[in-house]
């Protein structure tokens, strides 16, 4: 499978104490086709490379949005299917043989950030969300019915 990357140009990171410099911030997954409601999450500069934040979606669902050190942004379901707690945004990111991952902070099951699949459990796949960055704001795409 090929990962498609859309560069959205150079986004300057606001002044801050953060040490990592990012030239381009890119949504990690191309939006799936279909109309979406784009929910503003935060300014890109608010994201810490390598960590996630939780985003409240209309209707009470939650997305976990991650910025990786290479500038990719991914969004997956925040609810950990193994524990029932909304904690995935607080997990540690990394990679497994190159696949970008997050590990549940509770019992450490590892999920692909690209596909939402649980890497050690073929039966489990989490929903993923499209992400885009507009005028410095990260937005999460919620499919419209």
């Amino acid at each position, binding site marked *: 499978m090929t990962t498609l990357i859309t560069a959205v140009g150079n986004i300057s990171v606001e002044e*801050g*104490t*953060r*040490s*990592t410099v990012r030239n381009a911030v890119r949504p990690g997954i191309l939006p799936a086709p279909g109309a979406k409601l784009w*929910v*503003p*999450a*935060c300014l890109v500069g*608010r994201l*810490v*490379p*390598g*960590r996630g*934040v*939780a*985003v*409240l979606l209309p209707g*009470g669902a*939650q997305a976990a*949005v991650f910025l*990786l*050190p*290479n500038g990719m942004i991914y969004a997956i379901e925040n*609810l950990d*299917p*193994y*524990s*029932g*707690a*909304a*904690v995935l945004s*607080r*997990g*540690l*990111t*990394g*990679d*497994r*043989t*190159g696949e*970008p*991952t997050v*590990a549940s*902070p*509770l019992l*450490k099951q*590892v999920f692909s950030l690209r596909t939402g699949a649980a890497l*050690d*459990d073929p*039966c*489990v796949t989490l929903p993923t969300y499209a992400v885009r960055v507009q005028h410095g704001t990260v937005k999460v795409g919620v499919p419209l019915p």
Partner: protein
Amino acid sequence: MSTTTESPTDAGTRTVVVVGHGMVGHRFVEALRSRDTESTWKVVVLSEEAEAAYDRVGLSSYIGTWDRASLALGGNTYDGDDLVDLRLGTRAEHVDRDARTVTTSSGELIAYDSLVLATGSHPFVPPVPGHDSAGCFVYRTLDDLDGIRTAAEAAIERAAAKGREANGLVVGGGLLGLEAANALRLLGLTPHVVEFAPRLMPLQVDDGGGAVLEGLISSLGVQVHTGAGTSSIAAQDDGRLAVELSDGTALLTDLVVFSAGVRPSDGVARAAGLDVGERGGVVTDLTCRTNDENVWAVGEVAAVEGRCYGLVAPGYTMAEVVADRLLGGEATFPGADLSTKLKLLGVDVASFGDAMATTPGALEIVHTDATKGTYAKVVVSDDAKTLLGGILVGDASAYTTLKAYVGREVPGDPGALVSPAGAELGADALPDDAVICSCNNVTKGSICSAIADGSCDLAAIKGCTNAGTTCGGCLPTVKKLLVDSGVELSKALCEHFEQSRAELFEIVASTGIRTFSALVARHGTGTGCEICKPTVASILASTSSDHVLDGEQAALQDSNDHFLANLQKNGTYSVVPRMPGGEVTADQLIVIGQLAKDFGLYVKVTGGQRIDLFGARVEQLPAIWQRLVDVGMESGQAYGKSLRTVKSCVGSSWCRYGVQDSVGMAVDLEHRYRGLRSPHKIKFGVSGCARECAEARGKDVGVIATDRGWNLYVCGNGGQTPAHARLLASDLDDETLVRYIDRFLMFYVRTADRLQRTAPWLDALEGGLDHLRAVVCEDSLGIADDLEAAMGRHVEGYRDEWKAVLDDPEKLSRFVSFVNAPEEADPTVAFDESGPRKVPVLLGLPTVREKV
């Protein structure tokens, strides 16, 4: 997808009719179609159920999702294979063996060359009066569960209107009965279980195990009635059922589920004159052929040499045997392992081998721990040498290794196998043909050769041997084999670093690299993971006094360290302020109490002499800590792999036996080492005399007063594998004591593996305690000054982590629930305060079924 070009009616193509599309029927069709490369067989499948084959073993996971598709077995509709004709909702009514035809419920006549009976079993319903009342169910099919659901929902509504609880009664306390009881619980009913035998799970466990199991199950809110039969059931006017038990008990229940065993569905076979067993089941030989050479039986309906098997694995084997035979093969049924291990309502139960000690002369060795709720029994041969079987209840962690020893000589004293103090049975002593993964029949030999061929982690071994891919119960043993193999790479921290933690520590210390990205770029690969990131974070923290949330380090910390609090199961945190030596002032206690009130926190005193406040949401942590810091309290680092507590007894200032001031020493030690990050948590204890009230010998560092000073003990711990601390040096003065502890701790921090506590570290240390004593007390390596200087820097640089966060708006800004709604409480967090104590309630229920 098969792209057959021949027409199914080609001459030379024979027809096999399969009766029953359950788990085994489907496996047979798959086995036949995947091996019949010449397309010599056309398959007609008759399925009474309207649903194509589904995972009956996982039936209970239908509850909650109510999604039939999620249980469908892969490939169960044979799309695109024109040699398989699946007829759903069609029963086989009659078999004419002379004409070789089957008559279906739709009146059709189908000719066969071979007939495979895979009709499974049906639940046995005891013929008590009223057994067919509305509200009586069995637990076997998806339709059964739909019926139970409808009745349960109606019952709950009816009960709520009357202000009472709805309940349900399960007749039968075997494996499936307990599973049904759990189902009722999930549906919101209070379950009762009635078992005729004097114990639960009479087929798998003995009386002792049954008693422990009953205690554990009852404590989960299931009402257990053993030694009682069901005498009658009568419908009441209010829609409920009055059930009378043989011991005179009368119960009113909203519904009844029968789970009193199964009977083979051999009706069609009987009518066709095939041989059936004494207790039912179509009798076959070891090739699964019946007394008619064109008719075969597989799965639960088959009585192979007179014996029926109620598990799916033997059924699958039979399916493979018959597929092989139809294609001219020579396979026979090798018998089956009926060992079981499962988790029922969260309780581990396992039985294996000759669990009931039926072998003549067999001896039983039993260990029961009533407080822990565990029961373990092993059955050995009359010379107490060969392991024959056993039963484990409450804790089945030894199952895989013990099972692999069945039929073999046990090294050492067999009693030690079940006694908690006994030596753990190593996998290293097992011969190569011992089966480690019984789900997939993988032997120790194949795992070891996979390791020898270069499989260097669990994932690789799983990939090439299939071991551990089904229930996962054998993974701890597989891991042990991997470690024992001494394969060089077993030192590798993870796929990103080939070095061990100790080697990385040396690299960091000698190169001065201070960021993860630089370390992984120069000495590793990739971008890291949940294993190496916290390890490197800990090394960076042990080697400097930077704040753990400074700069790039923030992204490395495990969730606990990231929010400087302990993550609990529902995503909330617990807060533990430091109370050095267990000391706390009245003002601090008042603030803690007030905080608990204001934020609705559950309060518990910990084993380490401090107070834990549970149930704080992320966004509440800063406000809570502000008030704690204001009253002079600091982070207790309960969330970190770091110094936890220094527990102390009251010592010479108050105690009439005390010979030294243990509280004073404990407070000094806690102040000295607070905040020290280490490979695992570290605990201390200080006792004021040899009576040892602080239990210091159960700690990583134990200090016990003597007439002449202090005795220093090291490398003890409680927990899963308790270890007594060992005496390192005696009668030390205060200053020498502290110097030795400095050296000991820093030596451990530098050389231990990730998550290795001091006791296993000492076990693995070459030269053991003598070597450690030489390093610490005699400076045999000439590094004592170095170690002391490193500790000196730690003590010098210590700052309270929480105060530093409160002073830094940037760090503070991360403590929000939602980045787009910072004050909004997480809607999935809720608590139940109706019981004796506040507990978290999970609204976002886990969607993944617990593996058995």
